[in-house]
């Protein structure tokens, strides 16, 4: 999976969970987005794992701060 594909996938997942349109490549941070609470965070993790066919560790889940972290994590799992 190439980075642009991953960015698209991440933006689609974020759009669905945060219930607003988010374009690919747009930076979205947890601390700046009031709707990205811990419940939504878990939903987002479930959705990303579902779509990308990957599994995050607990540390990775708690370490995600923004959309860029997710892109790096997904890219890393697909590259490894």
């Amino acid at each position, binding site marked *: 999976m190439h980075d642009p594909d991953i960015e698209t996938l991440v933006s689609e997942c974020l759009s669905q969970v945060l219930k607003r349109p988010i374009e690919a490549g747009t930076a979205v941070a947890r601390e700046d987005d009031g709707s990205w609470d811990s419940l939504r965070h878990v939903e987002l993790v479930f*959705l990303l794992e*579902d779509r990308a066919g990957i599994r995050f560790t607990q540390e990775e*889940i708690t370490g995600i701060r923004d959309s860029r972290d997710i892109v790096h994590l997904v890219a890393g799992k697909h590259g490894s």
Partner: protein
Amino acid sequence: MNRTGSTTLIDEQPVLTETARETALAQADAGVATALEKAEWQKVLFAPRPSRYQLGLLEPHWPLRTIHIQVHRNQPFEFVAGLVPAFAAYADLDVEFSYSAYDDALNFPAHGIADIEIVWLDFDRYAKNLTPDELLDWLFERLGYLRERSPARLLVCNWASTQPAATSFNQQLNARLAGIADASVCDQASLLSRLGSDYFDDRNIALAGSALSNAACMETARMFGLTWLPAAVHPRLKAIVVDLDHTLYAGVAGEDGIDRLQLEPGHIELQKQLSALQDSGILLAVCSRNHPRTVDRLFRQRRDFPLALEHFSTVVASWSSKVAGLRSIADTLSIGMDTILFIDDNPAELAEVAAAFPEIHTLLAGTGPAATHEVLSRYPRLHQWQAHREDALRSADMTANRERRRLRDETPDRGSYLQALGMELVFHLNPQQLRGRLHELSVKTNQFNTAMLRLSEHDIAARFSDPDCFTIAVELRDRLSESGVIAALFAHTENATLVVDEICISCRALGREIEPVILVESLQKMMQLAAADTATIKLTRGPKNAPALACLETVFQPAGQTGLDETEYTCSTDRLLNIPTRDCVHVRWEN
């Protein structure tokens, strides 16, 4: 098989006004669009592991009924609730959730009116401090409190745990919850059994206070949306009509030859599943484009089929349209199209039927028997919380109707026919043990239902504890079959008058002239107990209750129109004694 009658009906459609025609066409279009859209959705909703992303993209384009659900919990339900809407929409429901605080004590602070109350507890949190018996005692004290404050159906999720205590807790929960009106168990423990260790995901405990995995959330949401919520708010479907070729087996009976039809393992499972549904009270019928002789030979020759001709209450095999076939089936079974599920492998057939009957339920059997089995196992409105004696009797009673019709045609006059049936009516006054069946009659009868109050079990339980209320259940049997409890009457006293709130008689019992007997016998008893010399019966006109209206018009005197769609009938004790009833029914009281 009654093919000619149905065909005639199609030809004799009344001429529609332009507006009515446009409305009918719009409804037909909507029916087709819904049937085909739902067939598309099957691939996502009934997949072995539904995709969260695909679920989120589904948008229903058919009308939904909004229901409000209050969740009482000590753990998050949001991960489940977020997935429920697509599943519920397939069952024509739009769900709105509201949540209590995380509350181990279940305080049930004041909240708005809900259609359903869900109790969603992580029972592991109590296990250190309470024994299972103590936990049950506490839980039932709280459920009793909630029951008093809310008339909505209570859905209590059981204990999904590998702890040994959970098994006995769940068994006792089932037994004790049966004693609370309109309360049912949602079997989370069986989802745990199915998913095994995949049910839990400890990664989320610290972050969100939930140990449920993605798969557990998905399966729970699927059960709520497709099975538990529809069963809580909709009456159960009454019949499944199946196509034959490429649905119950692979091949075409009329072309391939009966011996060459393939019965794959998936077909065997599907046929066994249909047989089990019939055992649980769902009527089965065949609607097939085949020669009747071919269908007859098919079931006689293929002894390896789990389904036999006897499983079907009616079989329509003909070259005319399936619309005509389904109309004939609905007429024969005396049921509405909105209570039928039609299964066919051909989307064009589903579309044609949905155009004629937008209210019918459809299932596309296009992707093989295993997929059809999967859809059917979760199809909305087939689940039942509680089995009634009548469920096991229904199919045999419908089969006996064929014999009754033969007897009627062979007997010289109506009186002799009714006498030959040897009918017996057994009356029960305030039968608390029949609460579930009385509720079923109130919500499922349409043709003979005088008020359509759609009483819940909770409503009926309240009537049992009110000394001014009377409830009567009536059982029917004749020499051909047991019909079980086929009538319910609900009444109360008001200023020395008996007010009959609702009379419901199952359509299976109609046509044997027992309605006046049921009315007279029940009213006499209740008026005597209430020391009332007058009874009033209110009839609310509905789209289908013409038989009830006709009966009341014949038996009683209309006292006048009380509203646009309401008529009130009165009857004195003197008049009651003079109402003519057939002298061919044996009557007795129990209790």
